[in-house]
């Protein structure tokens, strides 16, 4: 029996089908979940994919956070179920307060789409064990509300507890995907909760799982193989 990974579709979600493809590429079963349905259909983990749920109106993730499916996701996440929020999914996770901080408009105020270099700072979360600590990966970034902010105390706590899971790599030419693309505080690209089961990040691992498509790199596949291993070994 393989692992069942749920992929939530909110109205306006865009990357649900790509995320399902990435889940399958890693060898797990992808289970579509609908925002109005509280039932998680016995999935072992959930991905909240990217997109513009509810058009990103009001604030990115603000409206979807109140959907029925999220009631169950929040409950299960607190009980330890692995949850990954990608881009809009990360924004939803901050709005639910499963992850601290908030996402604001990029400091240059534009949408940015590029291949982004990040460093995996925490390779012990449910979603990152297939990476080496400190490993640099390159995956697509595409958003307009990608600037991570939190107050100093929260930031210090995240650092102290090793909960900055991914950081933008800044020491290289920006044409090659280096640099902080949006003004995120402390170059934070993604974070984890204390238990390591809930992870959110802005760049899109699901767009980097096949050679030739997108950037032609497969650096994102590790997210999905990590969770598969964890669930199968559990």
């Amino acid at each position: 029996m393989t692992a069942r990974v749920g992929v939530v579709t909110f109205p306006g979600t865009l990357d649900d089908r790509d995320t399902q493809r990435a889940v399958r590429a890693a060898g797990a079963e992808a289970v579509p979940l609908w925002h109005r349905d509280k039932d998680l259909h016995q999935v072992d983990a959930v991905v909240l994919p990217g997109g513009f749920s509810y058009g990103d109106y009001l604030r990115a993730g603000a409206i979807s956070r109140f959907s029925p499916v999220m009631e169950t996701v929040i409950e299960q996440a607190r009980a330890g179920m692995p949850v990954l929020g990608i881009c809009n999914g990360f924004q939803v996770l901050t709005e639910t307060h499963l992850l601290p901080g908030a996402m604001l408009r990029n400091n240059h105020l534009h949408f940015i789409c590029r291949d982004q270099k990040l460093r995996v700072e925490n390779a012990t979360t449910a979603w990152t064990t297939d990476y080496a600590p400190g490993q640099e990966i390159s995956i697509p970034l595409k958003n307009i509300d990608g600037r991570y902010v939190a107050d100093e105390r929260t930031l210090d706590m995240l650092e102290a507890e090793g909960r900055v899971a991914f950081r933008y790599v800044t020491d290289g030419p920006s044409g090659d995907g280096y640099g902080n693309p949006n003004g995120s505080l402390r170059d934070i690209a993604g974070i984890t909760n204390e238990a390591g089961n809930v992870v959110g990040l802005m760049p899109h691992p699901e767009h980097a799982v096949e050679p030739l498509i997108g950037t032609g790199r497969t650096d994102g596949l590790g997210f999905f193989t990590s969770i598969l291993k964890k669930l199968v070994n559990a």
Partner: protein
Amino acid sequence: MARVVVDVMLKPEILDPQGQAVQRALPRLGFEGIADVRQGKRFELEVEGPVDDAALARIHEMAETFLANTVIEDFTVRVDEAVRAES
């Protein structure tokens, strides 16, 4: 320093998708009785020097040419008395 507030709202006849999305979400969150929601922008300007008629006229012009897109938006300019009193 005095504060001048410029409120910019979509003209009433212009579609406001954001306001609409907010309004549609409210009943689901248990808030009934809101017949309409419009979402606009609020600018708080900290003005150096006196906020006299000349200054307000300039801010009005600024709002008209820059802060608001008068093809689709209306705006209002007013002095924030609370802040003026404090300062």
